[in-house]
């Protein structure tokens, strides 16, 4: 495997999970657990970084995003923009300040604080559902 293939890691079928979280320790713990599950993970510290990742052409399959983060727009705006521009990307929202009303509009929601393993389970279940439906 050459360097570039190594950076694309895990083969061409593996689309990354993008985790958007401004708490570096929570981000690390969650991403570490996701990598232990064999997933390719990209880390962003805010919504602006996340859009930069998408704009750079990384073929992201799922975005797991916090809502309240520093930067020009929040995780909800990120999810709105992604639904408009990349409807093939699944978005999961987490927050300590929202209720589960997002579920009513079809966006999986995980309330904060959460145990990282619970977030991993939710992300894996979304991936499994997508793959079961050929997504």
């Amino acid at each position, binding site marked *: 495997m050459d360097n*570039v293939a190594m950076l694309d890691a895990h083969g061409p079928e593996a689309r990354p999970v993008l985790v958007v979280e401004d708490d*570096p320790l929570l981000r690390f713990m969650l991403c570490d*657990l996701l990598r232990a599950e064999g997933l390719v993970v990209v*880390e962003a510290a805010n919504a602006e970084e996340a859009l*930069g990742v998408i704009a*750079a052409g990384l073929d992201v399959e799922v975005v797991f995003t916090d809502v309240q983060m520093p930067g020009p727009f929040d995780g909800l705006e990120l999810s709105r923009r992604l639904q408009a521009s990349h409807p093939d990307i699944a978005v999961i929202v987490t927050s300590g300040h929202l209720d589960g009303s997002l579920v009513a509009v079809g966006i999986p929601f995980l309330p904060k604080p959460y*145990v990282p393993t619970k977030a991993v389970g939710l992300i894996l279940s979304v991936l499994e559902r997508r793959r079961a439906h050929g997504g």
Partner: protein
Amino acid sequence: MGAETPVDDARPCILLLDGDVLSRHALAEYLRGCGYRVVEVTTSEELFAVLDHGTPMIDTILFDLDAPGSVNGFALRAMVRDAYPGIDLIAAGSTEKAAKEAANLCEEGPELTRPYDPQLVIARIRRMQARRDDEDG
């Protein structure tokens, strides 16, 4: 954040500070491919949050001298040396230097099976940055 602490892991751990998400991701994946555990941080504040937390234990810090945050790269180096004298510090002032330093780490890394070419990492970062900048522009 949740009450859990990072999972136990025997791999040497690198704390990577870079304010550019694409450079950081490429360098982090490169280092992970060499067998390291990598904690990614985007600012000096995030870097000290990880160090002050105490876990995961950090062996080496690879940092961009121009990374965002209230502490500049030179002050950051002095502060870390003072407060965490057991941690190796590697400063990089450019993507090229960071990739070369990552390659040096890979040569000492736990899972090196072949030499890595940092130029390929740099080329990938440049391509991703150009695509992102085109979309932004």
